[in-house]
């Protein structure tokens, strides 16, 4: 019975290509929108993951403030002194490198070029902890760091945009009120997700920064990397213990600092993107719903328009159930077809948009299956009412219908 219904349904669809096309348009748009959003969302999530791993995956960040989500508290919490850095260096077991890190925004001038950039004070250990590499020149030497020499390493954007065609090494950069000599250029890290150029920066030795720019001997953050990824949890516990001891925090008090590992950051970012993707998908799903209602509309109109056809079929010997099944199958076929076209357009659209917004194109077969199943289901759900109406027609009246 089903095979026969299928024949009838396919013939009816082919018989009226324009009507069929308009019927599926809503589904096509809805499915395409969902596919584009979900695919780009997956791409974004993946990119965040890979960017975070670029930052150094087995890294801990010690920062002031209690719970990250407490917001305002972070501002009042004490920064870290050089004594803290030394204590960590002395006492931590299984640590590969420790790099104090502090940064601010400042005006950077090279010749006639003038830009606002991030100025960082740190030590050369940062290259271990955060995977920073120099493409030209070198890192700071220990003596430069200790003496607070006015040397600096510049980011790739500054190299490219402010020193175009010039030899960077040995050139002079003015950072705020100090002048320093360029001794190295960092490898490009690329755009960061939410705006901001990671390569628009000037790195000074920490001591130079503290004395000449920061005005204090404190540091805002301390980055640490473990010997292995596995030891990270243990390392984190050690850092907390050492810092609580140094700051004499009682057993029942909350820490006024926070140790974060990159997996946490990555989780937070990915869950944020997940929420956004879900939200956008919900909007796209509404358009899919509208597409379903469009199918119902046209199928209802079609039942009226095809009343006489239904009458003929009933007279010829179709049962009400067969007529109903035919309309249902027509609706399901149309929306499944719309789903296929929508998937194709959606994948094409996502493949086109992804490079334009710097996101990798991630193909997720499960999404396609879901989109297809959902669109077919839309056809069945919204095709049901018109189909039932068709099946309940009185054959005599249907035949008389003009």
């Amino acid at each position, binding site marked *: *019975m089903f095979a*026969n219904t299928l*024949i*009838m349904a396919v*013939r009816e669809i082919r*018989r*009226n290509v324009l009507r069929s096309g308009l019927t599926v348009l809503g589904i096509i748009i809805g499915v395409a929108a969902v596919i584009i959003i979900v695919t780009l969302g997956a791409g974004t999530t993946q990119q965040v993951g890979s960017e975070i791993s670029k930052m150094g995956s087995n890294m801990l960040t010690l920062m002031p403030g209690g719970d990250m989500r407490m917001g305002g508290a972070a501002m009042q919490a004490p920064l870290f002194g050089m004594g803290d850095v030394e204590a960590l260096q002395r006492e931590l077991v299984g640590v590969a490198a420790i790099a104090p890190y502090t940064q601010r925004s400042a005006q950077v001038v090279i010749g006639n070029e003038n830009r606002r950039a991030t100025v960082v004070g740190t030590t050369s250990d940062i290259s271990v902890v955060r995977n920073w590499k120099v493409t030209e020149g070198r890192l700071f030497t220990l003596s430069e760091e200790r003496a607070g020499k006015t040397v600096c390493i510049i980011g790739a954007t500054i190299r490219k945009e402010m020193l175009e065609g010039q030899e960077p090494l040995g050139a002079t950069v003015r950072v705020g009120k100090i002048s320093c000599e360029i001794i190295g250029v960092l490898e490009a890290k690329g755009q960061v997700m939410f705006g901001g150029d990671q390569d628009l920066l000037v790195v000074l030795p920490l001591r130079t920064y503290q004395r000449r720019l920061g005005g204090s001997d404190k540091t805002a953050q301390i980055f640490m990397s473990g010997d292995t990824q596995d030891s990270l949890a243990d390392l984190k516990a050690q850092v907390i213990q050492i810092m609580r001891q140094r700051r004499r925090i009682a057993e029942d008090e909350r820490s006024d600092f926070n140790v974060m590992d990159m997996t946490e950051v990555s989780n937070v970012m990915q869950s944020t993107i997940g929420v956004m993707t879900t939200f956008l998908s919900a909007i796209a799903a509404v358009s899919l719903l509208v597409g379903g209602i469009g199918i119902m509309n046209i199928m209802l109109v079609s039942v009226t328009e095809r009343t*006489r*056809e239904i*009458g*003929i*079929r*009933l*007279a*010829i*010997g*179709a*049962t*009400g*159930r*067969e007529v109903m099944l035919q309309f249902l199958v027509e609706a399901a076929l149309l929306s499944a077809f719309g789903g296929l076209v929508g998937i194709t357009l959606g994948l094409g659209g996502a493949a086109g948009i992804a490079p334009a917004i710097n996101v990798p194109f991630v193909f997720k077969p499960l999404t396609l299956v879901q989109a297809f199943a959902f669109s077919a289901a839309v056809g069945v759900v919204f095709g049901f009412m018109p189909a039932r109406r068709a099946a309940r027609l009185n*054959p*005599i009246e249907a*035949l008389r219908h003009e």
Partner: protein
Amino acid sequence: MNVMNGGMQREPATGPLVAFEQVYKIYGHGESEVRALDGIDLQINAGEFVAVMGPSGSGKSTSMNILGCLDKPTAGRYLFKGTDVTSLNSEQLAMLRRHYLGFVFQGFNLLARTTALENLEIPLIYQRIEKAKRRAMAREALRVVGLEARENHTPAELSGGQQQRVAIARAIVTNPSLLLADEPTGNLDSARSHEIMQLLTTLNRERGLTVVLVTHEDDIAAYAQRRIDFRDGKIVRETRASRAGAA
């Protein structure tokens, strides 16, 4: 006959193909009550060619609808091959139409934008006949009505007379026991009308197809062996043509 859930008896050797026993069809209640059929008794034997006549509102269309199992009487019994059809549900009635009845309408009622062959296949699809056999049966029926050369034409590409031939082919493609023709010549000129009537006569004579025909026109009714006149829901006159054989 198992489609009738065993309710249908074997075709009796004698006895009418269809029979109305005190059939009433009443619309409305009380003052506004309309008796479309007012106690009709009627028997039609297999192989007969019957013309049903009468002014509009006389009950001839209502009786055709009941004969065609498209409608049910308000009271009385309708026996089809000896089985009381009145007690069947709509699904069973559909099965009766599918296997034993053929319809020809005034307005042809072919599916638009569908070729002649495909139109003929529809009743066979409902009978679950597989494709090759379906095609062969449809082609044979088209040959019977003389349109084998037009199988890929859609109704819009056929003349009125040709469309009605296709409709007749569609009605007979399933080898029905009874062909019901509701003013089949109503939309045709007189030359085309007579061609259609000759076709129906041939089908009746050569294949023994039982034909019940509704018409307004005497010269069309003249093709039938038997003529039944309706008025106000009652049969007012029955005549048998002299050339009618052993009906």
